[in-house]
């Protein structure tokens, strides 16, 4: 959020530089069951973001001292591939990806029925193949589908999307330019059956009115994302089972 810019990100007709209105999200593509070895997997594109998620588990929890005798833990690792951003990203976890891994793990742990698998670990791997603002939401969206694809019982399938502010307008689903030169970003994830929030961050500068509007846009859009998640799972189950799982 630089906040200081003369860049026109929304024109006089309310049109954004990629042709969207304020309340439109980018094109979303979701596919379930895309990897052979993982117990569950999903591929998500949101605009130019390309994300893979894979789930292994419930399986034995490593390291041991993290085991919880009452329930499973969800361990998510979010990773940006070296070529996914405009400057090459040095391999290995940085502080940003450690934080994102933590909040996605927490969001997923709310919806997974962890009490069914004491001592186990449910491992979620999110790989960002291409990043263009919104990867944590794309990653969490993909992870939820991968968990469902793995047959892990959940209270809800979690959709995530960001709203934000750029050029003084509250906008849904910021793209890279809006994120770089805009004034605020609010990624959010909900349980669609209750609209309860399981992930929320905000940075930038927003009045209460702007923020309330952003949340409204994002919650509505989350329901759309959720429909696409369910669609992807339906398509997945109508396909013949993958060869490896016979």
């Amino acid at each position, binding site marked *: *959020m630089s906040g200081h810019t003369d860049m026109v990100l929304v024109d006089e007709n309310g049109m954004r530089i990629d042709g969207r209105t304020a309340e439109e999200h980018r094109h979303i593509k979701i596919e379930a069951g895309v990897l052979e070895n993982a117990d569950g997997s999903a591929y998500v594109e949101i605009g130019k973001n390309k994300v893979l998620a894979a789930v292994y588990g419930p399986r034995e929890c490593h390291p041991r001292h993290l085991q919880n005798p009452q329930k499973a833990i969800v361990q998510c690792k979010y990773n940006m591939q070296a070529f996914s951003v405009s400057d090459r990203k040095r391999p290995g976890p940085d502080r940003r990806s450690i934080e994102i891994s933590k909040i996605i793990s927490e969001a997923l742990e709310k919806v997974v029925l962890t009490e069914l698998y004491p001592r186990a670990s449910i491992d979620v791997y999110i790989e960002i193949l291409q990043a263009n603002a919104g990867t944590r939401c794309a990653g969490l969206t993909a992870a939820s589908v991968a968990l469902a694809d793995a047959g892990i019982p959940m209270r809800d399938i979690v959709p995530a999307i960001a709203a934000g502010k750029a050029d003084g307008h509250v906008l849904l689903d910021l793209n890279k330019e809006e994120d770089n030169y805009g004034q605020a970003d609010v990624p959010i994830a909900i349980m669609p059956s*209750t609209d309860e*929030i399981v992930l*929320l*961050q*905000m940075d*930038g500068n927003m009045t*209460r009115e702007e923020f309330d509007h952003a949340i409204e846009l994002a919650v509505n859009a989350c329901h759309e994302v959720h429909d696409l998640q369910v669609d992807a799972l339906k398509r997945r189950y109508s396909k013949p089972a993958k060869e490896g799982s016979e």
Partner: protein
Amino acid sequence: MSSEIMSEIKRDHIMKLLADGKRQDGRGVTDTRKLEVEVNCIESADGSARIKLGKTEVIAGVKIIPGTPFGDTPTSGVLTTGAELIPMAHPTFESGPPGEDAIELARVVDRGIRESGMVDVEALCITPGEEVWMCFVDIYALNYDGNLFDAANIATVCALKSATIPGEQYGKGENKPLPITCLPISVTEVKVGNTLIVDPDYDEEQISSARLTVTTDDNGNFRAMQKGGRGSITLDELSLCLDRAVEIGAEIRKIIG
């Protein structure tokens, strides 16, 4: 008595109190603990503050050093925030490089400072594209009894507010105060059962399901938020948190202002 039974009893006790709107230490649900601030306690730092929020104790120090600007912001100073949960502060904290808790703590504090524009980074330019002041904030938890987010935020804000650019030490002009534009204040609440309580202590954090930190600026605008924890919050709860963050943030800002 096993620690599990202990924690079960403690949980019941806290929940029972909360049912009547009360807390272990006598506070109401929106009361913060006593805040004590000592600024410029470290002469080797360019700015520093040691603060107590109840029994939670945090020290933050600022070092300001000439360095090279980033290529995409040639006229901006650089601001960096690190936090360490040193084993001195709690029996469960371990030695070693910062873990995910310390990293999240530092990043949430950093976002509040950065996004509010508290430090006028443009005024930290020495020679455009060549040399700028780099401002390192290092935060250490000294004693942990809950709500490190707000304690670290307050310590950082106080340390920056009291900081001096050490021009003379580096032959870069005279010493002058670090240029400060506003005071971003975070207010953290946790959800215990269905109750949101402000400035949680350790026991309250342990039994809470979700956490929300909301940072506001002097105008009551929102600058940073972070939901944590393995629980959820409703939209109504979010709204309540935002109201409180503005109100309580203003009170804290008055205390340290």
